[in-house]
């Protein structure tokens, strides 16, 4: 007989099963056995969930950079998944811009092997669209799919040409996987380093206009409409992009999209103050204006946005500790996303906990066609326990990720993670929440 555990008395929020209320969750080995009221213990190990905590299907971050192979000084699969579970994520999907690029089964298998060795969060590799991410010919996508890739993208860059994006949408449709697009017209982006607007102008930084993103998104939405393929627009930052997605969805196009916490909380004002030219405010796409930030929130509220993902992009201190122009784009995000979302969207009443679970668990699972996103009998016992009242102060010196490049250092949020469980095993517990596992 496998080991049974009974999570007792928590508020279970499981929108896929229409559940939001106090229920017990019985776990049998690595699977959910039953969710119901006052389930009998029957020899199961009882885990009391303190009042006020929320039990939900494991959160899935569908956009992270684990940097292995090739850039292990920034992050490894092991440190990345440790940061993930501390941030409440039971699974992450990792981007292919490693060195070498994940454009073949060998790299995919290496990542999966490292993930098995680490044994914390599930890792879903994402393969490259084009060989070497060179934007010229398709990578061996059937081979990547067979090896375990759940999607393809040339993230870091857009799919280089319309014809390649067309072929990629047609080709991926055969393997039931999405094309994830980093939308950015390269000619409009040029050598820009910040959002094109008054702040960049006053700081003397070269700009990247919002429409650089929307133009590529528009191209891909039209191509998805023509081919019937599924395009997922990654890390939206501009109001014009979300407008293009909204229009596409209203026409029935197979398009989904994601927003990162920094794009629904921060604006480019942060580049000027309190610390001007802080390279931890430099990411791609860049922090934009209030109008853009507010459009992201509106899209989250009205249902246009499908997913909150972090675009966790670790960079070493030395790489970021340079002039703004020379610093690499990107910030870490795995350990801050839950606190930011609970505080700025849920506590404020903009969205419900249930909607948050849709954005961070149900929809990523649906888009990537992976298990999870719900707590039904037989599902993997991947569970996140949220502490919505926990006071959290972000301290980058305590971060578990190998890199510390966050603009949120010293910020306080109400809400955090109490515990994370993957396949019935406790992989993270925060004692400050009263949770004992």
């Amino acid at each position, binding site marked *: 007989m496998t080991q049974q555990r009974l999570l007792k008395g928590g508020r279970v929020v499981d929108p896929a099963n229409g559940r939001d209320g106090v229920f017990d969750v019985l776990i049998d080995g690595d699977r959910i056995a039953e969710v119901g009221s006052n389930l009998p213990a029957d020899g199961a190990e009882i885990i009391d969930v303190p009042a006020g905590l929320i039990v939900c299907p494991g959160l899935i971050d569908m956009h992270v950079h684990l940097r292995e192979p090739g850039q292990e000084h920034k992050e490894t699969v092991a440190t990345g998944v440790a940061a993930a579970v501390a941030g409440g994520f039971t699974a992450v999907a990792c981007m292919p811009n490693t060195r070498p690029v994940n454009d073949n089964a060998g790299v995919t298998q290496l990542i999966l092997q490292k993930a098995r060795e680490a044994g914390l969060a599930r890792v879903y590799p994402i393969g490259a669209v084009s060989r070497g991410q060179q934007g010229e010919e398709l990578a061996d996508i059937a081979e990547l799919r067979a090896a375990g890739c759940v999607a393809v993208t040339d993230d870091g860059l857009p799919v280089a040409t319309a014809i390649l994006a067309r072929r990629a949408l*047609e080709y991926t449709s055969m393997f039931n996987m999405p094309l994830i697009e980093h939308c950015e017209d390269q000619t409009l982006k040029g050598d820009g380093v910040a959002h094109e607007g008054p702040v960049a102008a006053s700081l003397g930084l070269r700009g990247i206009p919002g429409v650089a993103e929307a133009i590529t998104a528009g191209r891909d939405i039209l191509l998805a409409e023509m081919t019937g393929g599924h395009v997922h627009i990654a890390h939206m930052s501009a109001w014009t992009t979300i407008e293009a997605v909204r229009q596409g969805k209203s026409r029935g196009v197979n398009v989904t999209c994601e927003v990162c916490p920094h794009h629904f909380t921060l604006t480019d004002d942060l580049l000027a103050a309190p610390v001007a030219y802080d390279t931890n405010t430099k990411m791609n796409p860049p922090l934009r204006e209030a109008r853009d930030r507010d459009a992201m929130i509106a899209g989250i509220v009205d249902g246009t946005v499908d997913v909150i993902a972090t675009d966790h992009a670790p960079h070493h201190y030395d790489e970021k500790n340079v002039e703004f122009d020379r610093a690499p784009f990107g910030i870490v995000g795995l350990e801050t996303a839950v606190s930011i979302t609970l505080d700025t969207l849920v506590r404020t009443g903009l969205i419900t906990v249930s909607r948050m679970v849709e954005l961070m668990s149900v929809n990523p699972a649906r888009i990537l066609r992976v298990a999870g996103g719900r707590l039904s009998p037989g599902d993997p016992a991947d569970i996140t326990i949220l502490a919505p009242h926990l006071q959290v102060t972000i301290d980058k010196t305590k971060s578990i990720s190998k890199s510390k490049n966050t603009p949120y250092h010293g910020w306080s949020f109400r809400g955090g993670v109490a515990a994370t469980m993957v396949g019935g095993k406790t992989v993270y517990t925060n004692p400050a929440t009263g949770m004992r596992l």
Partner: protein
Amino acid sequence: MLLLTKLGADVWVCAPATLIPAGLRQMGVRVTTRVDEAVEGADVIMMLRIQLERMQGGYFPSLREYFTTFGMTEERVRRARPDAIIMHPGPINRGVEIASEVADGSASVILDQVANGVAVRMAVLYLLAGGTEHEAVA
């Protein structure tokens, strides 16, 4: 395709999505990108050559992946009827659209098809050039 459907055959067309012409379904054939599904229970399997300009046109990643995903192997042929025949108008690309074991196997009628194809072309050219049936027999 048009003739076979006119004569009542149940015709399936299988290719990578990147190579399937728009509107093919309107021609009365069934279209799939899953070769196993296309072969299932078939009386006849007819392969077509991947032309060089297709290979170089970026329609699929590599010849290796084309063969593993779409190539006609002995294993795939086993999904067809036991008496199914293998056709191909030639020239064949061994190890691309068809495995040598299948092309040279006992179910293959490829050489007959190619020989008949020559005779048919000769007849058509002869008649188009003004020849008569009588002279043709002579």
